[in-house]
């Protein structure tokens, strides 16, 4: 249940931005979640909806963008199929994970500024 602690970090970051920009309201936050980031998007949404009450994010909807995981050979670029052994059969190199597939990023915050 680390989703709650992640939401806490998210809301904290948004509140910092609100103060920096002297915003009067937050309308929307956009978060991207990698498939291998260790976060369940549905649980994260539930945690967000529970936690945002009483914070500056109370009126802000959250858009979650999921980033699929793709593994490929760093040498020849060959894609490693889902579920396969993560070594390139041709080059014998360990596969590399696609960008963002193991990250949780706060992408955009839409806010009202005076």
């Amino acid at each position: 249940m680390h989703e709650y602690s992640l939401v806490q970090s998210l809301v904290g970051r948004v509140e910092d931005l609100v103060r920096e920009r002297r915003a009067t309201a937050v309308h929307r936050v956009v978060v991207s979640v990698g498939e291998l980031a260790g976060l369940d998007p549905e649980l994260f949404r539930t945690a967000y909806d529970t936690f945002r009450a009483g914070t500056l994010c109370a009126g802000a909807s959250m858009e979650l963008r999921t980033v699929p995981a793709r593994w490929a050979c760093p040498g020849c670029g060959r894609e490693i199929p889902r579920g396969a052994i993560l070594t390139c059969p041709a080059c014998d190199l360990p596969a590399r994970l696609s960008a963002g597939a193991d990250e949780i990023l706060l992408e955009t915050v839409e806010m009202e500024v005076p």
Partner: protein
Amino acid sequence: MCTTCGCGDTSLVPVDVHEKILAGNDRVAAHNREHFAAAGVLALNLMGSPGAGKTALLEATARAAGGRWRLGAVSGDLATDNDARRLEKAGIPSKAITTGQGCHLDAQLVHDALHGFAWKDLDVFFIENVGNLVCPAVYDLGQAANVVALSVTEGEDKPLKYPVMFKGADLVLLTKCDLLPHLEVDVAQVMDGLRRVMPRAEVIQVSARTGAGMDAWVRWLEARKASLPRATGAVHVHSHAHPHVHAHAHEHRHADGTVHSHEHGHEHAHGHLHGPGAEEDHRHGGADHAHSTGSGHDHGH
């Protein structure tokens, strides 16, 4: 726009952030990592399910290498300091981190635990995470490497069920291998699963009870220690680091009281941090390098 016409309306602006939600944790983790590197301490994040045998593994590590290295640990649990007490008894100075409802350790908890704990004199510092195969994988603590304990009783498909944990592992210790004759577990199948979730699947089979495989584990630790920034030392740092580390080890082996060793630790700590202060910049290249060969791939999130 509306500020110019004076109607008092606000305008809606999208602010691009593109920043990790855990950027705050990562900053503290980087700070921890610098501390460990500066003191030449090999810090490891030991993870695994509850009951995977993490504490028993550390007890066995003390038996296998305690005479050679100074080991220390912080040990995370929701409640009780049982693990820390077990480790103390095994000769590993330890501190409990009770997380309450927290399902994982984060960098700040580890940082706070370092205060009042003589970690700087250690050769290997274990961060025994909360027993959990999900959440701990998400939080960087500042460790040099992730070690995951997976016991043979947990089922062959554990790696496939918890890919995030194993993806981030630099080493998997397959524990309780003395039980294999009594189980219908196919180790080859466990290995196959690991290779499908870990790009570099490094696995050592161990038994804390019989001591089997502990020599290979100690060799792994040795290799990791040798690849620490100070030990491999780019240029300068090398000559500086070595005498320091040795002096420490010797003094402490002879010291009997914790108070005694603590004082020493302090004096030396100053020498480390300030003396080579300028060096810290030099070392950065080296440190970064070592991290990328070490845990860079999983922490480069």
